[in-house]
Each structure stands twice: as C-alpha cells, then as structure tokens.
C-alpha cells in the first residue's frame, strides 16, 4: 500500500468537497499517514475465503408497502434553506464561466 502524501490529500479533499489550505493539506497528510500505517494490518488479516460482512444482523427483504405517507409543504421543506426563490432551493451557478 502506498504511503499517503500531500497530493493524495488534495485529491481526496476535492472528492470530498472540502477546501483546504496548503498548511491543512500538509498537516492532514502527516496525520493520515500515521493512521493509515496503523490500520494496514487489516488488509492482511483475512484470507480470500473469508466473506465480507456489511451488516451486523443478517436481515433480508425489508420492504415498505407502496402507500403514500406524509409530505411537507414547500414552506416546511424550505424552512432551513440558506437561500430559496419561488418555492425552490436556490444555489449559485453550477459552472464557472466568469
């Protein structure tokens, strides 16, 4: 497993949509390197024959009947919105064309 460096952290921060200063990237890279190093034994712990467990309890087929339940009014839906217009959530431009 490759060590985690500053460029990796910058890439991950982009994926995670968290802006980070150069300083933060450096610090985070150092911290993550320690953590990643200490968890690396995990990849050697289990052989190929061991199945993965994604849920602690083995439930299957949990369904809901197709019956309409409660809804919000637009006002309720938008009550916590940082910005809205015409009963819709307002967001800045998606593309940078400035």
């Amino acid at each position, binding site marked *: 497993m490759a060590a985690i460096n500053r460029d990796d952290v910058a890439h991950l921060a982009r994926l995670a949509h968290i802006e980070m200063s150069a300083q933060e990237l450096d610090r985070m890279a150092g911290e993550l390197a320690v953590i990643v190093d200490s968890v690396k034994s995990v990849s050697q712990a289990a052989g190929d024959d061991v199945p993965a467990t994604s849920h602690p309890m083995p439930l*299957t087929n949990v369904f809901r009947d197709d019956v309409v*339940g409660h809804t919000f009014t637009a006002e309720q839906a938008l009550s916590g919105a940082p910005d809205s217009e015409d009963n819709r959530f307002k967001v800045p431009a*998606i593309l940078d064309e400035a």
Partner: protein
Amino acid sequence: MNTDAILSFEEAMEKYDPVLGFEVHVELNTRTKMFSSAPNVFGDEPNTNVNEVDLGMPGVLPVVNKTAVESSIKIGLALNCKIAESCRFARKNYFYPDTPKNFQTSQYDEPIAYDGYLDIELSDGTVFRVEIERAHMEEDAGKLTHMGGATGRIHGADFSLVDYNRAGVPLVEIVTKPIEGAGSRAPELAKAYVAAIREIVKNLGVSDARMERGNVRCDANVSLRPHGRERFGIRSETKNVNSLRAVEHAVRYEIQRHAAVLDAGNPVVQETRHWHEDTRTTTSGRPKSDADDYRYFPEPDLVPVVPSREWVEELRATLPEPPAARRKRLQGDWGYSDLEFRDVVNAGVMDEIEETIAAGASASIARKWWMGEIVGRAKAADVDPGQLGVQPATIVELAGMVEDGKINNKMASQVLDGVLAGEGSPAEIVEKRGLAVVSDDGPLLEAIDAALAAQPGVADKIRNGKVQAVGAIVGGVMKATRGQADAGRVRELILEKLGVTV
C-alpha cells in the same frame, strides 16, 4: 454554437463500423418513491412531494418500496434476464445539488436482473438481437432549473433553482452489452431499441413511459472502429436523448462526428455529450475525470433483496402478453396487411390505433386517420404522433360526422386542424367555422348543369356507359361549391340527370 466537423453518414459507414450501447432509465409509476413514502407524481408544485427522506435531512433512513422491486423484476423478466438470487443496493458518491444526499442509492455489482436479451424488429422486418447486460434499481434526482443567462441552459446561468419532487422517484436502468454488427442501420436500431423498451414497460404497466415527461430517458454510447478490427474504439456517451427520433438522430450524428475526428487522425475523447434537439447536434459535457471516482460501497442503511424463486414465478405469471405476440394478435384482429401493419408500427401509432378502436372506431377508420392525417402532421411539426395529443374520442367523433354526411373528409381534415389548434371539440369547430355539407339539391343541380355544359364531351362519354368519367364532372361541381358539397350526392345527381343507372 457547435463547430464540430462531421462526415457524411454514407462516408462514415464506408470507413467505419459502429458499436452502440444504451443505458435507458425507466421511471416507475409506483404511488410512492423508491425509498420514501412521499408521492411519485409528475407536475405538482415544487417541493411539495417531499418529506424528510427526499430532502436528505439529517437522521433519515431509506426503506425500499416493494412495488418498485416487483416492477423491476417484471422488467427483468420481460427482457429475458436472470433474476438475482440476492442483490444489494450501493451508494454512488458524487456531489451535485439535485442529489439531496450527495450520493445516489443505486445498485453496483449486484443488479437485480442480468444477462438478458431483446429481439428488435427493424422496419423491413429484420430481427436484431440486443443483449442486455443488466437492469438495476436506483433513484431519480431532483430537477434543476438554470436561471439567468440567455438560454436557460447550465452554460451562462447565474444561479439555479432546485425542486426535489422528482428526487427519489424509482428508476430502473437498463444497460445493454456492446451492440455490434448494426452497420448503417445503427441509427434505426437505436430508435427501434428504445421504442421496444418503452413499449415493454408500458405494456407491463410499470411505467407511464412518456418520453416527453422523462419517464423513459436514453443515454446512447457510440464508438467507431475501422472495418475488420475487433477492438472497440473510444466511446462517447450522449445524454438527454429524450424522444425516439432524437435517439436516431443522436446516434447518426455521433457516428458522423466520430468519423470526422478519426478521419482527421485524432483520438475520440471519452466524454459525456449533450444532445440538442434544436440544432440536432451534440456538445461536449465534462470529460471523464477524477470526479468520476464514485466510491461505490454497499448501502449500509438497506439490507439485501433476496427474491425467492416462488416470488419470481408469481410475478412471471402476472406478465402481460409480450409486445411481439401482441403485435401478431392485433394485426390479425385488425385485418391489416403485413405492409400496412409494419407502416403502423414504424410510424409509432399502434397503441394509438388500438385506443381509437377501443373508443369505437373501425380498424380501417382508425388507420385512415392516424396514418393518413395525424402522422403527416406530426412529421411536419417534428414531434412523435402521440405527442400531438389527438384523443381517440376526437377521431371517433370526426369519423361519425363524415359517416352521417354532416361533413365530408376534406372538412373533417380542417376540423382536425382546428382541434389541434385548440379551437375546441369537433362539433364546436364545425359550428364555429360554419362547415356543413350542402344538402339542398337546388344549388347543386345548377352547379351540375353548369359543369355538364362546360364539358359536353365528358357528358356524352358517361351517357355511353363510361361511368368512371363522372369524376371529372364531380370535380367541377366540387370546385364550384368550394368543397362544400357532398361528393357522393353530387355523383348520384349527375348519373340520375344523365339517365345512367349503376
């Protein structure tokens, strides 16, 4: 706005062999959403068909809609797929403001249906088998409206508004394996494939299948390779191809564009393309980049779906007649010739004709109206015939008026124009426009006399038994009465006057 060079389709076909692939998203018509109990309804006021789950509020959890699972299994079965013994949902992680949780709950390596096929009949009756890779369950995103800027498009917009009513609507995504060997029929096959999917899901009753509402949406993958080469070329993925004709045009355009790129010695860029109906061209979306690291992992808030074989068989037993079998049956019922029926199918009006017959028209009347009147208008208006919004009841009413002799066929056609222009019902339009067959024989007889006098030679021919020649006189009378006369009655009166009995 588009400056991409293209080659002629013929030249492209001479040099290259197209490989296609389709991802068709079908919106299910369940009452509620995929993972929440909010209503799945199109066209309501923004952000009213939502609850905390659809808005991705803190603390919410999804619960799978059983009907959506059943619909997905039905689609899988209708596409001759295997139904998974066990499958899971996964999270597809990406940030976009129409995606309330900033991940889409979808299926990744464990789709509910896989390894199927669909036999597609082309316009000349050739059957082409399209292999289905998978059909999986997922949820739709909300709707973004781009504001400001000139075009209402994302480019140049100042800001966007988000309506989450559509967020969480159940989708089934049907993915084909690479389709090889279609050659120059690739655009036609593309249209026929999407039409077949639309027909199947509509027939199953699992989707409203209205493309104009986005119930069926197609992403078309196109790549070219030189003839004789096995390895696929680099593909583009054209999104937003939302009518049958657009599918055909988009595939055709991309083939021409790729060919020009390759001809110029350049590599095709693997990217998303956006289809523009107005210019019938595609433009570049964003290239595939690290933003496409979706970090799929099993959705921990949902448990596996394990369709028992009994459940699958129960669902199989409820499947309606497959469209191909249905076509065979309908052709027999309606008594259309092979050619007539194929024309109907290719024009995309089979369902409409069936509905019109169900509303009370005869098979021949229904065909006459749809094929003779409506298809041409749709072509002129550049839309699918069904999109014109002609109601079966309108056709029945019009046909009835003709049959009763209230109006003739020519007037009926004018009335149809009026209906399409939103002037009201056929009866109202007849009234408003003062359309009525002239039934008083007096003025007609005068017109007939004049017509006979103008063409004495023709009158003689008729007297001598050449009854077919009567058409020329009828034509003269119709012209004189500006089409208001009942042509049948005119013919009778002429023959009577000339003492000819038929």
